[in-house]
């Protein structure tokens, strides 16, 4: 077990190193939400009510992009390139491999949430998160769910060239509908129902409660349950459908 743990740590360190050496991946999963925050934040400057909504929205989007998007990209790339197959043939325990990969994604999420919290405090008039426990619980459950969904989704993507199309076909509509419903009280009922059933809107609710409203966990257990249910679904599909090799042509 200590061996598996040591190998998880080594895999994690390798993943970190590879992440920083790949500027485009680092940019897409890292800088994009922050640029979005900077741009929208500047546009909404002075409107504290809007800024209070913007910051949790960006935080939720960051959780999704650092886990769901980044993992789908990574897994498909490594699968199609034959890296996964090669790793599969070594004694590296599967748990250590995925432990390292997941820890890498979690590190990116944690870094982004930290930057968003700091930026919210420094530039957008939002104080320190009012409810740290709720923030951590929502981020952790969100990370686990979106990471599992990203790994599961990788299975549906047939080749690396189409990864951007597949990922964006999910990421953009989910972000759009979740942002819209979170921000607008006049959203049509069925649109609201859809958004509430998807994992991002509940995550933004929870992050908003923790970061801005300070209402804590109690009032958002249903949101937490929706995210967790997606997580269970994602984990099931991730494990069941996982493919270590590119499909034979």
């Amino acid at each position: 077990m200590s061996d598996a743990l040591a190998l998880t740590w080594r895999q994690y360190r390798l993943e970190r190193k590879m992440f920083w050496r790949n500027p485009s991946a680092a940019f897409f999963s890292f800088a994009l939400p922050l640029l979005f925050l900077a741009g929208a934040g500047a546009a909404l400057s002075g409107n504290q009510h809007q800024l209070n909504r913007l910051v949790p929205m960006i935080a939720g989007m960051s959780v999704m992009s650092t886990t769901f998007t980044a993992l789908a990209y990574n897994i498909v790339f490594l699968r199609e390139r034959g890296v996964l197959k090669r790793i599969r043939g070594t004694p590296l325990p599967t748990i250590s491999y995925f432990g390292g990969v997941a820890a890498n994604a979690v590190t990116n999420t944690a870094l982004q949430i930290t930057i968003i919290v700091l930026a919210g405090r420094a530039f957008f008039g939002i104080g320190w998160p009012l409810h740290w426990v709720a923030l951590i619980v929502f981020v952790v459950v969100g990370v686990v769910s979106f990471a599992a969904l990203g790994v599961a989704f990788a299975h549906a993507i047939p080749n690396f060239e189409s990864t951007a199309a597949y990922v964006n076909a999910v990421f953009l509509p989910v972000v759009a509908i979740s942002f819209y419903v979170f921000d607008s009280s006049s959203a049509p009922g069925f649109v609201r129902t859809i958004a509430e059933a998807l994992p991002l809107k509940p995550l933004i609710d929870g992050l908003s409660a923790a970061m801005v409203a300070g209402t804590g966990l109690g009032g958002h257990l249903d949101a937490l349950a929706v995210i967790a249910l997606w997580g269970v679904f994602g984990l099931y599909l991730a494990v069941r459908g996982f493919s270590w090799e590119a499909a034979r042509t």
Partner: protein
Amino acid sequence: MRGIDITVQRGEVFGLLGPNGAGKTTTVEILEGYRARTSGEVSVLGQDPAKRSIELRRRIGIVLQSGGIYSHITPREALRHWASFYPHPRDVEEVLALSGLQAKADERSRKLSGGQLRRLDFALALVGDPELIFLDEPTTGFDPEARRAAWETVRSLRELGKTILLTTHYLEEAQALADRVAIVKDGRVLAIGPPRELMAHPPGAAHYRVAYRDSRGELVERQTDDPTRLLHELTSEALARGEQLEELAVGHPTLEDVYLELTADV
């Protein structure tokens, strides 16, 4: 796959030779633990590879037909990382030297040439100091010089006492490297034995080939199991006609003849 029954001895280089689609890679991937077999018995170093035990994977090294590597890793980093998977890895610098990668040890893998990446494939399979090494078409797409270099590596592994199972569709490769060869086609073993024996006692083919140029200058080739009688007939006929048998030669079929004979579509 219709049934492949082979036993590879410890310390030997065993070649699976056959055309594309013969079932070579499928066979090797079952042995490596990548694929489940539908029936039959398989034992690799005394274990069932389908169970995918870590203990077994510590003792084998795999060179895949096409295995990728992280774009931004250097050979030295990759070898250090891979070495950490194994209980008694070889020295990374030594493996870099053995695989001829010293000069490129700190280059990102995306900047390596195809031949250099293939060397890295070898190096990564060796770094755990495995007892048994699988080489799936190790030199496909190589230029002659790179192929010779790869052959030297395989020979040096054999000298270290490693057992090697290699697949190839190059006859000369099987002939140059393998102690024993199994010729496979359509998931079946057609012939098995040391290359020399397959040539001396070709299964299903004549043992001798007699070739000469006839009076019209055309090359004639006859196959026989009784060269003495055939030669006697040919030479006496030629003498009776007052002709020469130009370029008369008697020989064994080459591995290529055996191979073509066996794998020819009937």
